[in-house]
């Protein structure tokens, strides 16, 4: 079992997301994350789906996705040839004693403080899954109150792109 990234172009229409997420559960496939948004063509949405599974499962997922009428294209992305990012918003406990230590850590990770209160700091962080984990580990001792993540989005490197 390994993590694979599928990039799926779909019609930007009501009900498409439920067809896709339904397909995963009904065929017993597991989604690690799913991120969706419109593309340069607003009639088309692009989903980046991270799936856990062996080759058989990945092949089945991609074939079953292709069978959906609203799915325009499915591409399994090659891990070594893509740039991936995930956005996380992290609310961490912070008081006058801990605030500056946290800001130092945030700086090292080139993350941003986007909100502050007497008791908390909210951090915006973009990066790979590994980078996220490293930051979480360092913030953990201060007390993480809340985390929101977008799920991973990926794009191919260089001149390659997915043709509609």
């Amino acid at each position: 079992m390994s993590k694979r990234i599928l990039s799926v172009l779909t019609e930007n229409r009501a009900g498409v997301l439920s067809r896709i997420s339904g397909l995963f559960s009904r065929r017993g496939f597991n989604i690690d994350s799913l991120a969706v948004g419109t593309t340069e063509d607003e009639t088309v949405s692009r989903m980046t789906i991270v799936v856990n599974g062996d080759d058989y499962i990945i092949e089945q997922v991609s074939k079953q996705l292709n069978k959906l009428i609203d799915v325009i294209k499915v591409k399994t992305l090659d891990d070594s040839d893509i740039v991936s990012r995930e956005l996380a918003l992290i609310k961490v406990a912070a008081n006058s004693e801990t605030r500056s230590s946290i800001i130092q850590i945030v700086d090292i990770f080139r993350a941003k403080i986007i909100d502050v209160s007497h008791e908390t700091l909210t951090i915006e962080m973009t990066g790979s899954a590994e980078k996220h984990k490293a930051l979480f580990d360092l913030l953990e001792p201060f007390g993480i109150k809340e985390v929101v993540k977008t799920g991973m989005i990926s794009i191919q490197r260089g001149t390659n792109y997915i043709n509609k």
Partner: protein
Amino acid sequence: MTGAKALIKMLENEGTTVVFGYPGAANAPIYDELSRSSIRHILPRGEQAAAHEASGFALASGRTGVCMATSGPGATNLVTGIANAYSDSVPIVAITGQVPTGMIGRDVFQEVDITGAVAPFCKHSYLLKSARDLPQVVKNAFHIASTGRKGPVLIDIPIDVLNEEFDFEQPKPVNIRGYKPTVKGNNLQIRRVREALSKAKAPLIIAGGGVGYAGANAVLAKFAEKYKIPVVTTLMGINHTALCGDLLVGMIGTHGVSAANIAVKRCDLLLVVGARLGDRAYTTVHSQNSDAVVVHIDIDPAEIGKNIGTQIPVVGDVKVVLEQILKKDIDCDIASNERWLKSLTELRNQKREYSDKKTFINPRLAMKVLSELTGGDAIVATEVGQNQIWAANNYKLSPKGGFITSGGLGAMGFGLPAAIGAKVALPQKTVVAIEGDGSFQMSMGELATIVQWNIPVKMMLFNNSRLGMVRELQKTTYKSNYFAVELDGSPDFIKLAGAYGIEGARISSNAELKDAIEKMLKGDTPYLLELVVDSEEGTL
């Protein structure tokens, strides 16, 4: 023009001549328009029957079947029929009324999310929001249902959309960017198929329902005949292989014939043609097999590699692919193929004794007599259970006949409505519903449909007063702990038919079979022949 009127106009444009449907509040505007149209409307005695009838119609005629229901319970009653059509790739379009657009999501009277409910087993579905979209959606729905791997498409139409006035515009030619089925086989793979055939000493074709959907019956027979390749079928393939004549070995699977299953075990090249090889057909019987090279030809790429490992996958329309293969002569070892074929036909032809219990009918013999008396030219539509397997293995189909059954879903209650749909599609044909006393009671309200719309189907009802196949399962797997399989309380079926004005007879000895079946077949009137079967009678 209103949405409802546009719908009827579009159905006419798509060549729809008959609709199986049930009216209600939410689809009332459709019925108002339907009353003024040339389309024939058949009112069944429940929406489930409407969906099965549309499937029977489609399977007999090759045209897309249409069924209709109102919102809520009308729509949910269609669900089994839609799931059945999905499992067996039957092209049907289901049209449901829906509560007004502004009320959707408020749990109003007779509201259900039917597009959500059928999503797992529907090829595609639409929830219309505007009458302007209706013409294109109907056109696309028929296209999707009847092309590629065929299947059911549902169109859910809120009543305000049906009543909406708009300027009708003819839809554009279908162009759906996410739906472009591959028709032609890849040339490299075609070449690999030819090479594999030239090397094979014992090739075998497994033919499935996809053969018929592609209209490939004749070309398959031609291909098999040219290279003397024996043919076995799945349950869904029976309907499409009568032209293979003496090359035909029989049905494979848990309830297949042994010659066919042995053929699968012994072959060295397996050509899977338009079959998905579900568990009952293949994987539970043959999973330990084999060194055979597997070629899989199917229009649905997702079926290739799903249930059976494949060395040579060919995605495409079965007919087109077989024609591509036939384009060049293959240097086959015909002598070896003939020896292999002979060994299988010998197995197949081992003489069968028909046990005679004097006070019971032997169902296998009954199906054999039906074959003889109809010449195999009748369309047979089966229920699900023992009756289905008796029919599958013992009705000898001619190329003019038909075999309609619920294969993938195994939906009891399918046979009678399917027979009705088939008879509506092909009124000149003899259509025989093969019934069990269990499944008959799931759809026997349709006797009224038969009478009201003058649809003279013949019914052969095997009555063993049991849910025979489940009882058999309890016998083999649960140490004969028979529970909930006795059908006490069933009516006198002949009297019941009589109450509808349908003639019938009950027989209980093999000696009466010929005369009784002859009488049943006589005349274009409905008839119920009840055959009393021993509850100990096995499926195989």
